[in-house]
């Protein structure tokens, strides 16, 4: 059998995925991304009366929630087994290891203590929830600042954040969980299993350790039989990994502290990288523009020179002038006639005594006007200039271009014409 010893994403056996820690604007809010697994941690505090058997200690409360957006399998009320297991493990790791000094959370013995509440939300499930959750919890606790309190005799003063800077919690050490997945009855071992690797694993070993190599919690689930040296080997690996992760956490906390002190921008909007979805981008095909200049020059060289434009108006008679040749008639073809539109605005017009230029286009239906005697609208006909006092029987083949713009509005209604798109 050809066994290819490879992980799906190309990692080695003891490799962790990329861990990214980002902080929110409030103290105590952080998001930890372990590969694609994301956990949001939020710490809050409240003054409450202590437990009866622990009158001088503060209260710690941990809660991990599997959001429905994390995986399709998570539905409200459906994932209780996994949830219970994760919550218990987290509690043992953080509460029983006494990583937080609960005595320092006492304000007035027997009456008022701080209750610290850590809420963790799983935003995306891609395997190894417990590692990401434990990192998020400890990072959020380290990042959190509680309001300052001062006790003078019987008086207790609680300062708002504006009056006095909030103080951090006193944390002894940072326990971090490391997960080991076993396959084929302990033959193969993988650190930081993916979601797909978790689906096919035989058993899971979780070791919670701090950087001083003290084991806080150890749990084996799945019913696999592990040998003593396997467990010892795992604890050694865990020690190395925890040291790396603790360093990463301390660096992230330091960076955030620095940014806040310097007054720079902090918060999720800055630290969480924008992932651009390129799936919807219409990709522009790159056009080769190296020979654009030559092509343009060729086009210009081969093109015909533009026709000469007579810029000065030619005065034929008082009241009759011509500027240029006029534009092509854009009134469209007549249904009846087969005549084409003339170039140069070969309109026919009847000139009356009052110089009103009624520029009509061809032929048949002029309707209410006097029926003109139209010989032809061919361009070859010579241009005849009418004097104002002459008999308006002859027809001019060209009209002034200046008046031509008024043509459409003066068009008689009864003229039937196909409309053609303007040039």
């Amino acid at each position: 059998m050809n066994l290819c010893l490879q992980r799906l994403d190309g990692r080695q056996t003891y490799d962790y995925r990329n861990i990214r820690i980002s902080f929110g604007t409030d103290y105590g809010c952080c998001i930890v991304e372990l590969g694609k697994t994301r956990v949001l941690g939020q710490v809050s505090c409240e003054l409450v009366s202590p437990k009866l058997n622990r009158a001088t200690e503060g209260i710690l409360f941990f809660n991990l929630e599997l959001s429905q957006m994390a995986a399709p399998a998570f539905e409200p009320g459906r994932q209780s087994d996994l949830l219970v297991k994760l919550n218990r493990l987290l509690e043992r790791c953080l509460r029983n290891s006494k990583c937080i000094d609960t005595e320092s959370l006492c304000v007035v013995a027997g009456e008022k203590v701080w209750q610290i509440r850590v809420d963790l939300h799983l935003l995306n499930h891609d395997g190894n929830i417990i590692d990401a959750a434990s990192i998020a919890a400890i990072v959020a606790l380290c990042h959190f600042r509680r309001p300052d309190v001062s006790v003078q005799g019987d008086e207790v003063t609680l300062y708002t954040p504006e009056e006095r800077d909030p103080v951090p919690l006193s944390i002894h050490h940072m326990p971090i969980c490391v997960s080991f997945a076993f396959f084929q009855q302990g033959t193969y071992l993988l650190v930081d299993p993916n979601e797909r690797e978790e689906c096919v694993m035989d058993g899971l070993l979780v070791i919670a350790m701090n950087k001083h190599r003290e084991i806080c919690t150890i749990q084996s689930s799945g019913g696999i039989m592990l040998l003593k040296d396997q467990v010892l080997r795992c604890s050694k690996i865990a020690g190395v990994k925890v040291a790396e992760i603790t360093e990463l956490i301390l660096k992230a906390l330091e960076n955030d502290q620095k940014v806040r002190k310097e007054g720079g921008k902090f918060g999720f909007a800055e630290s969480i990288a924008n992932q651009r979805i390129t799936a919807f981008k219409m990709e522009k095909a790159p056009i080769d523009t190296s020979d654009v200049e030559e092509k343009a020059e060729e086009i210009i060289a081969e093109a015909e020179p533009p026709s000469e434009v007579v810029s000065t108006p030619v005065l034929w008679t008082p009241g009759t002038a011509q500027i240029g040749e006029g534009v092509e008639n854009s009134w469209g073809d007549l249904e009846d006639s087969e005549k084409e539109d003339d170039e140069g605005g070969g309109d026919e017009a009847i000139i009356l005594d009052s110089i009103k230029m009624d520029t009509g286009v061809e032929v048949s239906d002029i309707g209410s006007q006097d029926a003109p005697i139209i010989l032809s609208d061919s361009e070859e006909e010579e241009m005849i200039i009418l004097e104002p006092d002459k008999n308006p029987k002859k027809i001019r083949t060209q009209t002034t271009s200046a008046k031509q713009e008024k043509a459409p509005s003066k068009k008689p209604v009864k003229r039937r014409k196909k409309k053609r798109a303007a040039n």
Partner: protein
Amino acid sequence: MAEAASVAAESLAGSRARAARTVLGQVVLPGEELLLPEQEDAEGPGGAVERPLSLNAGARSRVRVVCGPGLRRCGDRLLVTKCGRLRHKEPGSGSGGGVYWVDSQQKRYVPVKGDHVIGIVTAKSGDIFKVDVGGSEPASLSYLSFEGATKRNRPNVQVGDLIYGQFVVANKDMEPEMVCIDSCGRANGMGVIGQDGLLFKVTLGLIRKLLAPDCEIIQEVGKLYPLEIVFGMNGRIWVKAKTIQQTLILANILEACEHMTSDQRKQIFSRLAES
């Protein structure tokens, strides 16, 4: 009457409905109302423009506009139900006003009739296979829905096999039903997917992009290694190459393609082609 109703709706909505034409390619949010082009002159700027009276008011030409995914008809307007970019496609043959839809991103699949999907056989009960397609319910697949299957000649389908088929019934009230033949009775590529290979999940938007005609990514991937690839509209892709190493590389590339620009992708492909 229509004007009065639309003005009332507008005041209820609280914001001006925008013309769909002006919003093409932009991000729209759920709850927005869009006006179709034929209604724009009716609304006018501020709705106070006087319309010329016409003797037969109902003679306005009705254009048939298709309301695609992410949009819903609301009176005579379009109501946006998903956030994403508004797209429009002109009608090919000239009839109707084209299709409007919202390009949105989603990971969870909702079965749609006619979609080709990859499913995993989870159970075999009597004459029906239960196939997990990633929706809220497993789809049912009858053993007769394979090419050349008869009561005596049953297809060789085991629990855990991958099936490529299409939905014939898929609505929100019933469990979806899928088949592995087309309307002529031919398999047309559907059926049980072969051995080996790797099945992995991506987002629905990436699948649509990869399935678009002339997708550059697929052409470039095809130049790298000889491969077999099946795309399911439910966000599942099955790849198979000559060696496991190559298969894993392909799977990782396709997953990463979603967030890579085309330059980064070309870089990666050129690096792979060298090695």
